[in-house]
Protein backbone atom coordinates (compact mmCIF):
# COMPACT_ATOMS: atom_id res chain seq x y z
CA UNK A 1 0.00 0.00 0.00
CA UNK A 2 1.59 3.24 -1.13
CA UNK A 3 1.15 6.76 0.10
CA UNK A 4 -1.75 8.61 -1.44
CA UNK A 5 -1.06 11.74 -3.47
CA UNK A 6 -3.38 14.29 -5.03
CA UNK A 7 -2.74 14.90 -8.71
CA UNK A 8 -4.49 17.88 -10.32
CA UNK A 9 -5.87 17.12 -13.79
CA UNK A 10 -6.91 20.12 -15.88
CA UNK A 11 -8.30 22.74 -16.43
CA UNK A 12 -5.51 22.91 -19.03
CA UNK A 13 -4.75 19.45 -20.35
CA UNK A 14 -3.97 18.18 -23.87
CA UNK A 15 -6.93 15.80 -23.84
CA UNK A 16 -9.49 18.31 -22.62
CA UNK A 17 -11.15 20.58 -25.17
CA UNK A 18 -12.76 22.53 -22.35
CA UNK A 19 -11.78 23.60 -18.82
CA UNK A 20 -12.64 20.82 -16.38
CA UNK A 21 -10.60 20.30 -13.24
CA UNK A 22 -10.24 16.98 -11.45
CA UNK A 23 -8.52 16.39 -8.14
CA UNK A 24 -7.35 12.79 -8.42
CA UNK A 25 -6.38 11.04 -5.22
CA UNK A 26 -3.84 8.51 -6.45
CA UNK A 27 -2.30 5.55 -4.67
CA UNK A 28 0.30 3.51 -6.58
CA UNK A 29 -0.93 4.69 -10.01
CA UNK A 30 -4.52 3.82 -9.08
CA UNK A 31 -7.12 6.54 -8.70
CA UNK A 32 -8.94 5.97 -5.42
CA UNK A 33 -11.03 9.12 -5.37
CA UNK A 34 -11.89 11.98 -7.66
CA UNK A 35 -13.42 15.40 -7.07
CA UNK A 36 -14.61 17.17 -10.22
CA UNK A 37 -14.70 20.93 -10.38
CA UNK A 38 -16.08 23.31 -12.96
CA UNK A 39 -16.69 27.04 -12.78
CA UNK A 40 -13.86 28.48 -14.85
CA UNK A 41 -15.99 29.84 -17.68
CA UNK A 42 -19.26 30.78 -15.98
CA UNK A 43 -20.90 33.55 -18.04
CA UNK A 44 -24.26 34.11 -16.36
CA UNK A 45 -26.36 33.70 -19.51
CA UNK A 46 -29.41 32.72 -17.43
CA UNK A 47 -29.35 36.19 -15.89
CA UNK A 48 -29.42 37.75 -19.38
CA UNK A 49 -33.01 36.58 -19.82
CA UNK A 50 -34.07 39.60 -17.76
CA UNK A 51 -32.77 42.05 -20.36
CA UNK A 52 -33.77 40.22 -23.56
CA UNK A 53 -37.36 39.58 -24.49
CA UNK A 54 -38.45 36.03 -25.21
CA UNK A 55 -37.86 36.37 -28.95
CA UNK A 56 -34.41 37.89 -28.55
CA UNK A 57 -33.25 35.36 -25.99
CA UNK A 58 -33.34 32.55 -28.53
CA UNK A 59 -30.13 33.97 -30.01
CA UNK A 60 -28.52 33.96 -26.58
CA UNK A 61 -29.74 30.40 -25.93
CA UNK A 62 -28.07 29.05 -29.05
CA UNK A 63 -24.80 30.73 -28.13
CA UNK A 64 -24.58 28.76 -24.88
CA UNK A 65 -22.57 26.12 -26.70
CA UNK A 66 -21.27 25.88 -30.26
CA UNK A 67 -21.83 22.14 -30.55
CA UNK A 68 -25.32 22.03 -29.04
CA UNK A 69 -26.47 25.35 -30.56
CA UNK A 70 -29.43 23.89 -32.45
CA UNK A 71 -30.51 21.82 -29.45
CA UNK A 72 -30.51 24.77 -27.07
CA UNK A 73 -32.51 27.05 -29.36
CA UNK A 74 -34.98 24.20 -29.95
CA UNK A 75 -35.31 23.36 -26.25
CA UNK A 76 -35.77 27.02 -25.34
CA UNK A 77 -38.38 27.61 -28.06
CA UNK A 78 -40.33 24.50 -27.04
CA UNK A 79 -40.37 25.63 -23.41
CA UNK A 80 -41.65 29.12 -24.24
CA UNK A 81 -44.26 27.59 -26.57
CA UNK A 82 -45.42 25.35 -23.71
CA UNK A 83 -45.54 28.43 -21.46
CA UNK A 84 -47.72 30.38 -23.91
CA UNK A 85 -49.74 27.48 -25.30
CA UNK A 86 -48.50 27.88 -28.88
CA UNK A 87 -49.15 25.08 -31.38
CA UNK A 88 -46.30 24.70 -33.88
CA UNK A 89 -47.12 23.72 -37.49
CA UNK A 90 -46.31 20.11 -38.36
CA UNK A 91 -43.84 20.99 -41.11
CA UNK A 92 -41.86 23.19 -38.69
CA UNK A 93 -41.62 20.26 -36.25
CA UNK A 94 -40.19 18.07 -39.00
CA UNK A 95 -37.67 20.71 -40.06
CA UNK A 96 -36.58 21.23 -36.45
CA UNK A 97 -35.95 17.52 -35.98
CA UNK A 98 -34.04 17.25 -39.28
CA UNK A 99 -31.69 20.07 -38.22
CA UNK A 100 -31.45 18.72 -34.69
CA UNK A 101 -30.47 15.23 -35.89
CA UNK A 102 -27.96 16.74 -38.32
CA UNK A 103 -26.40 18.56 -35.38
CA UNK A 104 -26.28 15.28 -33.47
CA UNK A 105 -24.30 13.74 -36.37
CA UNK A 106 -21.94 16.72 -36.39
CA UNK A 107 -21.51 16.60 -32.60
CA UNK A 108 -20.82 12.86 -32.54
CA UNK A 109 -18.37 13.10 -35.46
CA UNK A 110 -16.56 15.94 -33.73
CA UNK A 111 -16.34 13.87 -30.57
CA UNK A 112 -15.24 10.76 -32.50
CA UNK A 113 -12.42 12.78 -34.08
CA UNK A 114 -11.24 14.05 -30.70
CA UNK A 115 -11.47 10.54 -29.24
CA UNK A 116 -9.48 9.09 -32.16
CA UNK A 117 -6.87 11.80 -31.64
CA UNK A 118 -6.63 10.81 -27.96
CA UNK A 119 -6.20 7.13 -28.93
CA UNK A 120 -3.28 8.25 -31.05
CA UNK A 121 -5.02 8.05 -34.45
CA UNK A 122 -4.37 11.45 -35.88
CA UNK A 123 -5.38 10.47 -39.40
CA UNK A 124 -8.69 9.14 -38.07
CA UNK A 125 -9.29 12.54 -36.51
CA UNK A 126 -8.86 14.12 -39.96
CA UNK A 127 -11.28 11.64 -41.56
CA UNK A 128 -13.98 12.21 -38.94
CA UNK A 129 -13.76 15.97 -39.27
CA UNK A 130 -13.78 15.70 -43.05
CA UNK A 131 -17.16 13.96 -42.83
CA UNK A 132 -18.37 16.49 -40.28
CA UNK A 133 -17.49 19.23 -42.75
CA UNK A 134 -20.08 17.83 -45.16
CA UNK A 135 -22.75 18.11 -42.48
CA UNK A 136 -21.68 21.70 -41.84
CA UNK A 137 -21.99 22.33 -45.59
CA UNK A 138 -25.63 21.17 -45.39
CA UNK A 139 -26.16 23.66 -42.55
CA UNK A 140 -24.61 26.42 -44.60
CA UNK A 141 -26.79 25.67 -47.62
CA UNK A 142 -30.03 25.41 -45.66
CA UNK A 143 -29.59 28.06 -42.99
CA UNK A 144 -26.67 30.30 -43.96
CA UNK A 145 -24.77 29.47 -40.77
CA UNK A 146 -22.34 26.66 -40.12
CA UNK A 147 -22.41 26.48 -36.33
CA UNK A 148 -24.94 29.05 -35.08
CA UNK A 149 -27.96 28.32 -37.25
CA UNK A 150 -30.56 30.83 -35.96
CA UNK A 151 -33.40 29.00 -37.69
CA UNK A 152 -35.65 28.25 -34.74
CA UNK A 153 -38.08 30.90 -33.53
CA UNK A 154 -40.84 30.82 -30.96
CA UNK A 155 -43.75 29.47 -33.00
CA UNK A 156 -41.86 27.60 -35.72
CA UNK A 157 -38.76 28.01 -37.88
CA UNK A 158 -37.37 30.90 -39.94
CA UNK A 159 -36.46 29.02 -43.10
CA UNK A 160 -37.97 26.26 -45.17
CA UNK A 161 -36.09 23.45 -46.92
CA UNK A 162 -37.48 22.79 -50.39
CA UNK A 163 -37.88 19.32 -51.91
CA UNK A 164 -34.77 19.58 -54.08
CA UNK A 165 -32.67 20.46 -51.04
CA UNK A 166 -34.21 17.59 -49.04
CA UNK A 167 -33.22 15.20 -51.83
CA UNK A 168 -29.72 16.66 -51.79
CA UNK A 169 -29.47 16.22 -47.99
CA UNK A 170 -30.46 12.56 -48.34
CA UNK A 171 -27.92 11.96 -51.10
CA UNK A 172 -25.15 13.69 -49.10
CA UNK A 173 -26.04 11.56 -46.07
CA UNK A 174 -25.96 8.41 -48.21
CA UNK A 175 -22.49 9.44 -49.31
CA UNK A 176 -21.39 10.09 -45.73
CA UNK A 177 -22.82 6.74 -44.61
CA UNK A 178 -20.46 4.68 -46.81
CA UNK A 179 -17.35 6.55 -45.67
CA UNK A 180 -18.54 6.61 -42.09
CA UNK A 181 -19.16 2.85 -41.97
CA UNK A 182 -15.53 2.29 -43.01
CA UNK A 183 -14.22 4.59 -40.28
CA UNK A 184 -16.53 3.06 -37.70
CA UNK A 185 -15.54 -0.50 -38.55
CA UNK A 186 -11.85 0.40 -38.35
CA UNK A 187 -12.32 2.04 -34.98
CA UNK A 188 -14.48 -0.71 -33.47
CA UNK A 189 -12.34 -3.63 -34.62
CA UNK A 190 -8.92 -2.12 -34.03
CA UNK A 191 -6.84 -3.93 -31.39
CA UNK A 192 -5.13 -0.84 -30.01
CA UNK A 193 -8.50 0.89 -29.49
CA UNK A 194 -9.81 -2.21 -27.72
CA UNK A 195 -6.68 -2.42 -25.56
CA UNK A 196 -7.29 1.08 -24.29
CA UNK A 197 -11.08 0.94 -23.86
CA UNK A 198 -12.42 -2.55 -23.16
CA UNK A 199 -13.10 -3.05 -19.46
CA UNK A 200 -11.98 0.50 -18.61
CA UNK A 201 -14.14 2.80 -16.48
CA UNK A 202 -17.00 0.35 -16.07
CA UNK A 203 -20.32 1.67 -14.76
CA UNK A 204 -22.90 -1.00 -13.93
CA UNK A 205 -26.57 -0.60 -14.83
CA UNK A 206 -27.44 -0.26 -11.12
CA UNK A 207 -24.90 2.53 -10.65
CA UNK A 208 -26.13 4.29 -13.80
CA UNK A 209 -29.72 4.22 -12.53
CA UNK A 210 -28.65 5.20 -9.03
CA UNK A 211 -26.73 8.24 -10.30
CA UNK A 212 -29.53 9.26 -12.72
CA UNK A 213 -27.08 9.34 -15.60
CA UNK A 214 -28.28 10.51 -19.00
CA UNK A 215 -27.43 10.22 -22.67
CA UNK A 216 -25.01 7.82 -24.39
CA UNK A 217 -23.15 7.52 -21.07
CA UNK A 218 -26.16 5.79 -19.46
CA UNK A 219 -27.23 3.94 -22.62
CA UNK A 220 -23.79 2.29 -22.72
CA UNK A 221 -24.67 0.87 -19.29
CA UNK A 222 -27.89 -0.66 -20.64
CA UNK A 223 -30.28 2.06 -19.42
CA UNK A 224 -32.73 2.47 -22.32
CA UNK A 225 -33.55 6.11 -21.53
CA UNK A 226 -33.80 8.45 -24.50
CA UNK A 227 -36.11 11.48 -24.56
CA UNK A 228 -36.72 10.88 -28.27
CA UNK A 229 -38.58 7.65 -27.41
CA UNK A 230 -41.42 9.71 -25.86
CA UNK A 231 -42.39 10.41 -29.47
CA UNK A 232 -42.98 14.15 -29.14
CA UNK A 233 -42.93 16.42 -32.17
CA UNK A 234 -41.87 14.72 -35.40
CA UNK A 235 -40.34 11.81 -33.48
CA UNK A 236 -43.88 10.51 -32.99
CA UNK A 237 -44.14 9.81 -36.72
CA UNK A 238 -41.09 7.55 -36.87
CA UNK A 239 -42.06 3.98 -37.74
CA UNK A 240 -39.76 2.53 -35.12
CA UNK A 241 -37.48 4.18 -32.63
CA UNK A 242 -35.37 2.11 -30.27
CA UNK A 243 -32.61 3.74 -28.19
CA UNK A 244 -29.14 2.37 -28.98
CA UNK A 245 -27.90 0.55 -25.89
CA UNK A 246 -24.99 -1.63 -24.90
CA UNK A 247 -24.66 -3.84 -21.83
CA UNK A 248 -20.89 -3.58 -21.16
CA UNK A 249 -20.79 -0.14 -19.50
CA UNK A 250 -17.11 0.43 -20.30
CA UNK A 251 -15.32 2.99 -22.49
CA UNK A 252 -15.63 0.76 -25.55
CA UNK A 253 -19.41 0.51 -25.08
CA UNK A 254 -19.65 4.30 -24.97
CA UNK A 255 -17.64 4.64 -28.19
CA UNK A 256 -19.87 2.01 -29.81
CA UNK A 257 -23.15 3.63 -28.72
CA UNK A 258 -22.14 7.02 -30.13
CA UNK A 259 -20.90 5.39 -33.35
CA UNK A 260 -24.23 3.61 -33.86
CA UNK A 261 -26.24 6.73 -33.00
CA UNK A 262 -24.78 8.51 -36.02
CA UNK A 263 -26.23 5.79 -38.27
CA UNK A 264 -29.54 6.01 -36.38
CA UNK A 265 -29.69 9.78 -36.93
CA UNK A 266 -29.05 9.34 -40.65
CA UNK A 267 -31.99 6.91 -40.84
CA UNK A 268 -34.24 9.31 -38.88
CA UNK A 269 -33.45 12.19 -41.26
CA UNK A 270 -34.06 10.03 -44.33
CA UNK A 271 -37.40 8.83 -43.01
CA UNK A 272 -38.55 12.33 -42.06
CA UNK A 273 -37.38 13.79 -45.39
CA UNK A 274 -39.62 11.25 -47.13
CA UNK A 275 -42.63 11.91 -44.88
CA UNK A 276 -42.48 15.69 -44.43
CA UNK A 277 -45.93 17.29 -44.83
CA UNK A 278 -46.56 20.51 -46.76
CA UNK A 279 -47.77 23.61 -44.94
CA UNK A 280 -46.75 26.66 -42.96
CA UNK A 281 -43.43 26.81 -41.19
CA UNK A 282 -44.39 29.16 -38.38
CA UNK A 283 -47.29 30.79 -36.59
CA UNK A 284 -47.41 34.35 -35.31
CA UNK A 285 -46.93 34.52 -31.56
CA UNK A 286 -48.52 37.48 -29.79
CA UNK A 287 -48.82 38.51 -26.18
CA UNK A 288 -46.64 37.62 -23.27
CA UNK A 289 -46.39 34.71 -20.83
CA UNK A 290 -48.78 35.16 -17.89
CA UNK A 291 -47.45 36.19 -14.50
CA UNK A 292 -46.32 33.18 -12.48
CA UNK A 293 -46.89 30.76 -15.38
CA UNK A 294 -44.23 28.07 -15.45
CA UNK A 295 -43.26 25.31 -17.84
CA UNK A 296 -40.61 22.62 -17.96
CA UNK A 297 -39.34 20.59 -20.86
CA UNK A 298 -36.80 17.88 -21.64
CA UNK A 299 -34.91 17.39 -24.89
CA UNK A 300 -32.39 14.79 -26.05
CA UNK A 301 -29.19 16.68 -26.82
CA UNK A 302 -26.22 14.85 -28.37
CA UNK A 303 -24.88 14.38 -24.82
CA UNK A 304 -28.18 13.36 -23.24
CA UNK A 305 -31.31 14.74 -21.67
CA UNK A 306 -31.37 18.50 -21.19
CA UNK A 307 -33.95 20.06 -18.87
CA UNK A 308 -35.45 23.52 -19.47
CA UNK A 309 -37.55 25.63 -17.15
CA UNK A 310 -39.20 28.99 -17.79
CA UNK A 311 -41.32 31.29 -15.65
CA UNK A 312 -43.22 34.32 -16.93
CA UNK A 313 -43.96 37.62 -15.19
CA UNK A 314 -46.71 39.12 -17.34
CA UNK A 315 -44.32 41.03 -19.61
CA UNK A 316 -42.44 39.90 -22.70
CA UNK A 317 -39.35 39.40 -20.52
CA UNK A 318 -39.14 36.05 -18.76
CA UNK A 319 -38.75 36.02 -14.99
CA UNK A 320 -36.45 33.01 -15.07
CA UNK A 321 -34.98 30.67 -17.65
CA UNK A 322 -32.99 27.65 -16.64
CA UNK A 323 -31.17 24.96 -18.58
CA UNK A 324 -29.87 21.89 -16.81
CA UNK A 325 -27.38 20.33 -19.19
CA UNK A 326 -26.53 16.63 -19.54
CA UNK A 327 -22.93 17.07 -18.43
CA UNK A 328 -23.82 18.54 -15.04
CA UNK A 329 -26.03 15.50 -14.47
CA UNK A 330 -23.19 13.15 -15.46
CA UNK A 331 -20.44 14.69 -13.30
CA UNK A 332 -21.23 12.38 -10.36
CA UNK A 333 -21.22 9.40 -12.75
CA UNK A 334 -17.88 10.49 -14.11
CA UNK A 335 -16.37 10.69 -10.62
CA UNK A 336 -17.70 7.19 -9.92
CA UNK A 337 -16.31 5.80 -13.19
CA UNK A 338 -12.87 7.21 -12.37
CA UNK A 339 -12.67 5.51 -8.96
CA UNK A 340 -10.38 2.50 -9.13
CA UNK A 341 -9.05 3.17 -12.62
CA UNK A 342 -5.43 3.41 -13.69
CA UNK A 343 -4.00 6.94 -13.82
CA UNK A 344 -3.18 6.46 -17.51
CA UNK A 345 -6.84 5.67 -18.26
CA UNK A 346 -8.23 8.90 -16.80
CA UNK A 347 -8.10 10.81 -20.08
CA UNK A 348 -9.86 7.97 -21.93
CA UNK A 349 -12.69 7.82 -19.38
CA UNK A 350 -13.16 11.59 -19.28
CA UNK A 351 -13.22 11.76 -23.06
CA UNK A 352 -15.70 8.92 -23.59
CA UNK A 353 -18.12 10.67 -21.24
CA UNK A 354 -17.86 13.67 -23.59
CA UNK A 355 -18.21 16.50 -21.07
CA UNK A 356 -19.42 19.80 -22.50
CA UNK A 357 -18.34 22.42 -19.98
CA UNK A 358 -19.51 25.54 -21.77
CA UNK A 359 -23.07 24.12 -21.77
CA UNK A 360 -22.78 23.25 -18.12
CA UNK A 361 -21.64 26.70 -17.06
CA UNK A 362 -23.94 28.85 -19.21
Amino acid at each position, binding site marked *: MGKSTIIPFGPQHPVLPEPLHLDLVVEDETVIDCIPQIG*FVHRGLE*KLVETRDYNQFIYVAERICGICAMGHSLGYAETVEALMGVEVPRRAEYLRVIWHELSRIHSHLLWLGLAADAFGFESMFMHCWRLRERVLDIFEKTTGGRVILSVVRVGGVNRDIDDAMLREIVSVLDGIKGDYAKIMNTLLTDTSVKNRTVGVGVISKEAALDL*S*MVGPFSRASDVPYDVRSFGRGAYGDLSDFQPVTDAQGDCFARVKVRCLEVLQSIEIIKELAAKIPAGDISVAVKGAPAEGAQASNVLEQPRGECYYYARGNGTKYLERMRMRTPTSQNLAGMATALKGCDLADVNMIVLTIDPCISCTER
Partner: protein
Amino acid sequence: MPQFKQDFSPLSIEAIHDTAAARKAEGFRYVQTLAVNTEDGVDLVYSFMKDGALDNEVASGVPRDAVIPSITDLYLEAFVFENEIHDLFGVHFEGIAIDFGGNFYHLAVKEPMTIISPEQKAARDKARKIAAAKAAKEAKAKKAAEQGGAEAPAKAAAAEKAEAAADAAAKEAELEAKLAVMDPEKAAKVRAAMEAKAKKAAAAERKGE
Protein backbone atom coordinates in the same frame (compact mmCIF):
# COMPACT_ATOMS: atom_id res chain seq x y z
CA MET B 1 -43.82 3.80 -25.38
CA PRO B 2 -44.14 6.04 -22.28
CA GLN B 3 -45.82 9.40 -22.78
CA PHE B 4 -44.20 12.61 -21.60
CA LYS B 5 -46.20 14.61 -19.10
CA GLN B 6 -45.23 17.26 -16.59
CA ASP B 7 -46.81 18.66 -13.48
CA PHE B 8 -45.99 21.16 -10.77
CA SER B 9 -46.85 20.53 -7.13
CA PRO B 10 -46.13 22.53 -3.95
CA LEU B 11 -43.52 21.37 -1.46
CA SER B 12 -42.75 22.61 2.06
CA ILE B 13 -39.15 23.23 3.16
CA GLU B 14 -39.38 20.66 5.95
CA ALA B 15 -40.59 17.98 3.52
CA ILE B 16 -37.75 18.35 0.96
CA HIS B 17 -35.59 15.53 2.25
CA ASP B 18 -38.51 13.18 3.01
CA THR B 19 -40.02 13.77 -0.44
CA ALA B 20 -36.68 13.03 -2.10
CA ALA B 21 -36.38 9.84 -0.04
CA ALA B 22 -39.91 8.79 -1.04
CA ARG B 23 -39.18 9.51 -4.74
CA LYS B 24 -35.97 7.50 -4.51
CA ALA B 25 -37.83 4.56 -2.96
CA GLU B 26 -40.45 4.73 -5.72
CA GLY B 27 -37.71 4.45 -8.33
CA PHE B 28 -37.79 8.03 -9.62
CA ARG B 29 -34.78 9.43 -11.45
CA TYR B 30 -33.44 12.72 -10.12
CA VAL B 31 -33.60 15.38 -12.82
CA GLN B 32 -32.51 18.67 -11.29
CA THR B 33 -32.85 21.41 -8.66
CA LEU B 34 -33.20 25.05 -9.62
CA ALA B 35 -33.81 28.32 -7.80
CA VAL B 36 -35.86 31.36 -8.76
CA ASN B 37 -35.19 34.71 -7.07
CA THR B 38 -38.45 36.30 -5.93
CA GLU B 39 -39.42 39.18 -3.67
CA ASP B 40 -40.34 36.86 -0.80
CA GLY B 41 -37.17 34.80 -0.91
CA VAL B 42 -36.14 32.02 -3.24
CA ASP B 43 -38.30 29.38 -4.90
CA LEU B 44 -36.64 25.98 -5.12
CA VAL B 45 -37.85 23.56 -7.78
CA TYR B 46 -36.94 19.88 -7.44
CA SER B 47 -37.62 17.65 -10.44
CA PHE B 48 -37.90 13.89 -10.58
CA MET B 49 -38.89 11.62 -13.44
CA LYS B 50 -40.30 8.14 -13.81
CA ASP B 51 -41.66 6.55 -17.01
CA GLY B 52 -41.92 9.88 -18.79
CA ALA B 53 -43.75 11.65 -15.95
CA LEU B 54 -41.79 14.76 -15.00
CA ASP B 55 -42.66 15.70 -11.44
CA ASN B 56 -41.65 19.28 -10.48
CA GLU B 57 -41.97 20.06 -6.76
CA VAL B 58 -41.89 23.76 -5.95
CA ALA B 59 -40.87 25.02 -2.49
CA SER B 60 -42.00 28.66 -2.66
CA GLY B 61 -40.68 31.60 -0.68
CA VAL B 62 -37.70 29.95 0.99
CA PRO B 63 -36.16 32.65 3.28
CA ARG B 64 -32.59 33.58 2.37
CA ASP B 65 -31.29 32.62 5.82
CA ALA B 66 -32.97 29.20 5.82
CA VAL B 67 -30.85 26.06 5.99
CA ILE B 68 -31.98 23.46 3.48
CA PRO B 69 -31.15 19.79 4.05
CA SER B 70 -29.01 18.44 1.24
CA ILE B 71 -30.35 15.48 -0.75
CA THR B 72 -26.88 14.36 -1.87
CA ASP B 73 -27.02 11.42 0.57
CA LEU B 74 -29.85 10.07 -1.63
CA TYR B 75 -28.91 11.50 -5.01
CA LEU B 76 -25.16 12.20 -5.19
CA GLU B 77 -25.54 13.98 -8.56
CA ALA B 78 -27.39 16.84 -6.81
CA PHE B 79 -24.10 18.19 -5.45
CA VAL B 80 -23.58 20.25 -8.62
CA PHE B 81 -26.93 22.03 -8.26
CA GLU B 82 -26.73 22.58 -4.50
CA ASN B 83 -23.27 24.13 -4.77
CA GLU B 84 -24.45 26.21 -7.72
CA ILE B 85 -27.53 27.51 -5.88
CA HIS B 86 -25.39 28.29 -2.85
CA ASP B 87 -22.96 30.36 -4.93
CA LEU B 88 -25.48 32.11 -7.16
CA PHE B 89 -28.46 32.59 -4.81
CA GLY B 90 -26.89 32.39 -1.34
CA VAL B 91 -29.14 29.56 -0.13
CA HIS B 92 -27.33 27.45 2.43
CA PHE B 93 -27.48 23.66 2.09
CA GLU B 94 -26.46 21.46 4.99
CA GLY B 95 -24.51 18.25 4.49
CA ILE B 96 -23.62 18.37 0.76
CA ALA B 97 -21.59 15.26 -0.08
CA ILE B 98 -19.02 17.27 -2.07
CA ASP B 99 -19.18 20.75 -0.55
CA PHE B 100 -17.10 23.45 -2.23
CA GLY B 101 -17.94 25.94 0.54
CA GLY B 102 -18.79 28.81 -1.82
CA ASN B 103 -15.91 28.20 -4.27
CA PHE B 104 -17.79 26.24 -6.92
CA TYR B 105 -17.97 29.15 -9.34
CA HIS B 106 -15.29 31.78 -9.64
CA LEU B 107 -17.50 34.85 -9.48
CA ALA B 108 -16.71 38.56 -9.68
CA VAL B 109 -19.88 39.46 -7.74
CA LYS B 110 -21.24 37.55 -4.76
CA GLU B 111 -24.62 35.87 -5.26
CA PRO B 112 -25.21 37.47 -8.66
CA MET B 113 -28.63 35.94 -9.26
CA THR B 114 -30.15 37.74 -6.25
CA ILE B 115 -29.36 41.18 -7.68
CA ILE B 116 -32.53 42.66 -9.12
CA SER B 117 -31.46 44.43 -12.29
CA PRO B 118 -33.10 47.79 -13.25
CA GLU B 119 -34.67 46.01 -16.25
CA GLN B 120 -36.25 43.36 -14.07
CA LYS B 121 -37.45 45.96 -11.56
CA ALA B 122 -39.01 47.98 -14.39
CA ALA B 123 -40.67 44.86 -15.80
CA ARG B 124 -42.08 43.96 -12.39
CA ASP B 125 -43.34 47.52 -11.77
CA LYS B 126 -44.92 47.62 -15.19
CA ALA B 127 -46.66 44.30 -14.63
CA ARG B 128 -47.90 45.52 -11.25
CA LYS B 129 -49.17 48.87 -12.61
CA ILE B 130 -50.93 47.24 -15.53
CA ALA B 131 -52.55 44.74 -13.17
CA ALA B 132 -53.61 47.57 -10.80
CA ALA B 133 -55.03 49.68 -13.66
CA LYS B 134 -56.92 46.66 -14.96
CA ALA B 135 -58.33 45.89 -11.50
CA ALA B 136 -59.42 49.51 -11.02
CA LYS B 137 -61.12 49.54 -14.41
CA GLU B 138 -62.91 46.28 -13.64
CA ALA B 139 -64.03 47.54 -10.22
CA LYS B 140 -65.44 50.73 -11.83
CA ALA B 141 -67.27 48.70 -14.44
CA LYS B 142 -68.70 46.48 -11.73
CA LYS B 143 -69.83 49.47 -9.68
CA ALA B 144 -71.47 51.02 -12.71
CA ALA B 145 -73.24 47.77 -13.50
CA GLU B 146 -74.49 47.52 -9.90
CA GLN B 147 -75.99 50.97 -10.06
CA GLY B 148 -77.98 49.80 -13.03
CA GLY B 149 -79.53 51.94 -15.75
CA ALA B 150 -80.32 54.80 -13.35
CA GLU B 151 -76.81 56.19 -13.61
CA ALA B 152 -76.59 59.95 -13.82
CA PRO B 153 -74.74 61.34 -16.83
CA ALA B 154 -72.37 63.21 -14.50
CA LYS B 155 -71.44 59.95 -12.81
CA ALA B 156 -70.80 58.28 -16.14
CA ALA B 157 -68.60 61.17 -17.19
CA ALA B 158 -66.67 60.92 -13.92
CA ALA B 159 -66.20 57.20 -14.44
CA GLU B 160 -64.99 57.86 -17.97
CA LYS B 161 -62.56 60.46 -16.71
CA ALA B 162 -61.20 58.04 -14.09
CA GLU B 163 -60.87 55.40 -16.77
CA ALA B 164 -58.92 57.76 -19.01
CA ALA B 165 -56.68 58.64 -16.06
CA ALA B 166 -56.07 54.94 -15.39
CA ASP B 167 -55.22 54.46 -19.06
CA ALA B 168 -52.85 57.41 -18.99
CA ALA B 169 -51.21 56.01 -15.85
CA ALA B 170 -50.74 52.63 -17.52
CA LYS B 171 -49.26 54.34 -20.60
CA GLU B 172 -46.93 56.39 -18.45
CA ALA B 173 -45.85 53.28 -16.57
CA GLU B 174 -45.11 51.56 -19.84
CA LEU B 175 -43.03 54.51 -21.01
CA GLU B 176 -41.14 54.58 -17.71
CA ALA B 177 -40.40 50.88 -18.05
CA LYS B 178 -39.08 51.45 -21.57
CA LEU B 179 -36.91 54.34 -20.41
CA ALA B 180 -35.47 52.27 -17.57
CA VAL B 181 -34.20 49.71 -20.06
CA MET B 182 -32.63 52.32 -22.36
CA ASP B 183 -29.15 53.64 -21.74
CA PRO B 184 -29.27 56.75 -19.50
CA GLU B 185 -28.09 59.24 -22.16
CA LYS B 186 -30.79 58.25 -24.59
CA ALA B 187 -33.42 58.19 -21.83
CA ALA B 188 -32.47 61.74 -20.79
CA LYS B 189 -32.84 62.92 -24.40
CA VAL B 190 -36.24 61.27 -24.70
CA ARG B 191 -37.36 62.85 -21.42
CA ALA B 192 -36.21 66.32 -22.54
CA ALA B 193 -38.04 65.96 -25.85
CA MET B 194 -41.20 64.88 -24.06
CA GLU B 195 -41.06 67.85 -21.67
CA ALA B 196 -40.62 70.26 -24.58
CA LYS B 197 -43.61 68.71 -26.31
CA ALA B 198 -45.78 69.03 -23.16
CA LYS B 199 -44.77 72.72 -22.79
CA LYS B 200 -45.61 73.43 -26.43
CA ALA B 201 -49.00 71.73 -26.06
CA ALA B 202 -49.75 73.75 -22.89
CA ALA B 203 -48.76 76.99 -24.65
CA ALA B 204 -51.00 76.17 -27.62
CA GLU B 205 -53.90 75.51 -25.25
CA ARG B 206 -53.40 78.87 -23.51
CA LYS B 207 -53.32 80.69 -26.87
CA GLY B 208 -56.51 78.95 -27.92
CA GLU B 209 -58.28 80.12 -24.75
